[in-house]
């Protein structure tokens, strides 16, 4: 008995030790290769793009042709969990060597906390236009990340439905509203849109808003505090969001992302105001869908607008043991070769200007970006604060769509929230 008891005990104690030490060892940090030879450096990349695993394999292969001595592993985590997992491992002094940074304020929060290595003077940074670099540049002008891709938000439309009802791409806001009206009269849901998920609301506001505040000039002014959310242009943009509700599907307050996507690719709705990342999803769901897009025509007689922003950058973990190798990888991300590899495989718009892909729609979008781009104002300038102004406008618009809030209330709440943290407004 004695012996057996002891064995049990020792076993249990050992188990406990394993369990308690597992917490600290298994956080997928920078692998510390003990053997000293140069040949075996392994870089890990953290990201929220779990769906891009196979694509990154190709990128890593191309990189290895140039640098066979550096092994690279792509280790993504689920999009909604990514921030949590990354924050926890960074706090523990670990985390991947190369970090996929969220664009603008949320990504720069990590840099502010000292977790990200400055990369000023990295070869190839001059490939990118200044506003693209801004997505991962600190307030003091320090560059922390290499921009990866641009996302655009626009109205996609089903060409077959447009043809059937004799419609063409609108050239003015009034034409756009006339299209909605006509489709509704003829029994087709004009806009595949739902208000159950908040993030879709600031996204749609980012598509329709610039048509009313006239694009970049207003954004420039508001970012300097020369005007604010109570200005007539901005109030109009909120009013318009309310006007559009009658063109949404039935029960739109209960529809989320998957629901509206389904409505659109099954041909039950004519237009779909969403982001460029949906192109590939829509193609997979329905290869026969005749997909078109149009930049948002202006309501105030200006150029049409295409809302564009940087959707992510890659930075280096300040705690990484292989900063030099990580820099080499980041330099590779600035090359035209990578840009083409990226657009071709990922079907997204590369942040590197002038890159062509084999996807006509993506190429058209890239071209439109250089002509009509306007920033996604809520994300680029107003993603700070807690709750952030971006989240505030999402919640308040949601309140408006279910009758708990009116236009003035939305504007007032948003203005007050922003004054609390945004210096130019104070």
């Amino acid at each position, binding site marked *: 008995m004695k012996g057996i008891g002891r064995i049990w005990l020792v076993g249990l104690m050992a188990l406990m030790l394993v369990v308690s030490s597992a917490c600290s060892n298994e956080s997928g940090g920078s692998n510390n290769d003990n053997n000293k030879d140069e040949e075996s450096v392994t870089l890990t990349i953290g990201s929220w793009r779990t769906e891009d695993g196979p694509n990154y394999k190709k990128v890593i292969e191309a990189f290895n042709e140039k640098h066979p001595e550096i092994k690279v592993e792509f280790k993504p985590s689920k999009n909604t969990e990514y921030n949590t997992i990354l924050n926890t491992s960074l706090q523990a002094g670990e985390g991947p060597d190369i970090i996929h940074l969220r664009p603008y304020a*949320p990504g720069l*929060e990590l840099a*502010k906390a000292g977790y990200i290595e400055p990369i000023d003077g990295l070869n190839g940074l001059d490939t990118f236009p200044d506003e693209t670099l801004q997505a991962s540049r600190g307030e003091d002008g320090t560059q922390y990340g290499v921009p990866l891709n641009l996302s655009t938000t626009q109205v996609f439309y089903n060409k077959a439905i447009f043809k059937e009802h004799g419609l063409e791409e609108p050239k003015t806001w009034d034409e756009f509203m006339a299209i909605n009206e006509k489709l509704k009269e003829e029994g087709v849901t004009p806009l595949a849109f739902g208000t159950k998920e908040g993030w879709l609301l600031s996204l749609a506001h980012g598509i329709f808003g610039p048509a009313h505040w006239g694009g970049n000039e207003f954004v420039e002014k508001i970012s300097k505090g020369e005007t604010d959310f109570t200005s007539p242009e901005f109030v109009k943009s909120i009013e318009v969001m309310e006007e559009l509700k009658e063109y949404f599907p039935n029960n739109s*307050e209960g529809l989320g992302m998957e629901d509206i996507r389904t409505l659109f690719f099954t041909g039950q709705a004519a237009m779909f105001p969403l982001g460029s990342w949906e192109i590939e999803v829509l193609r997979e769901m329905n290869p026969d869908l005749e997909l078109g897009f149009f930049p948002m025509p202006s309501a105030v007689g200006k150029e049409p607008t295409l809302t564009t922003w940087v959707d992510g950058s890659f930075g280096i973990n300040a705690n990484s043991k292989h900063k030099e190798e990580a820099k080499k990888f980041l330099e590779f991300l600035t090359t035209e070769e990578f840009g083409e590899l990226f657009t071709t495989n990922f079907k997204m718009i590369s942040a590197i200007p002038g890159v062509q892909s084999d996807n006509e729609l993506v190429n058209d979008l890239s071209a439109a970006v250089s002509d009509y781009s306007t920033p996604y104002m809520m994300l680029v300038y107003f993603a700070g604060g807690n709750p952030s102004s*971006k989240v505030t406008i999402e*919640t308040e618009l949601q309140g408006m769509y279910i009758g708990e809030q009116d236009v003035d209330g939305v504007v007032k709440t948003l203005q007050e929230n922003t004054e609390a943290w945004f210096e130019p407004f104070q």
Partner: protein
Amino acid sequence: MQIETSTPIVKQKKTRNWKRWAIHLFPVPALLIFSVFIVYPLVAALSYSFYDWNGISRGAFVGFKNFIDLFTLQPFSSMFWNAAKNNVLYFVVQMVVQNGIAFVLAFIIYKKIKGAEFFKIAYFLPRLLSVIVVGFLWKLILNPNFGALNVILGEFGLESLQKAWLGDPKTALMTIILVNCWFGIGFAMLIFLAGLQSIPKELMEAAKLDGANGTKVITKIILPLMVPSIMIMTVLTFIQSFEAFELVYAMQGSQGEPYYSTDLLAVFFYRLAFGGSAAGSSTAVGLGSALAVVLFLFIATCTALLLKFMQKKQVEM
């Protein structure tokens, strides 16, 4: 191991000593788990709540500022009270609907109707699913445009009842609570059934002989003797409804959508501590920790009071 042929006194003493010494070792594994996964996080959260946080890096010591902000700083204070209000509703509805129905079901089964065994299993089935699965399942059933519920309502010509149940702030929270009741009924029923079955048969028979009618039996015998199981269920329901999170997260995400109508304290905490799931949401670790501490103290205090009250109510047998 030695084979002991004789057991002299000395030996016996040794063994007893060994036993005394060993007895203290048995809780060690449990204590280890408990301290690593429960005590340490509690202490950590408490210490986090006294610091200022800049994103995810710890700033200066600020004393009770986070706690004061939580109750006074807009928009957090209004979010806090709104979430607390929703939690109270959660508790009340679960008590009345879930435990009320469960009691009736337990009583019916106790009365030995036909197929009692089958019903027992049937009521308990939802409990076997993971909460997240239950959430997604009901999300599909409740989908306004192709969900089973609205389709069935349409078949019966009840178009007026077809709505976006989870998209309308008037119905969203209630819908989620009812789903939670559907999930929890089986467990509550089992507890009540066990309580009923532990009532001594002689008592019931004696009551019958004394000519007590059904109502009398229920009020004078069954209910008083059921107090322990009713109290256990109350405590469990209380704890569960004040830390409810998974179901709302699975069905509505972490923003308490729509328009904070389904915001609960635990969801609010998740949002503060880890940021929402959307890009462009920021974290407030200090406030989140303060909320966690407040929530812990509140649940612990109320549970202790409930248990004390329960001991007073016990019927001596």
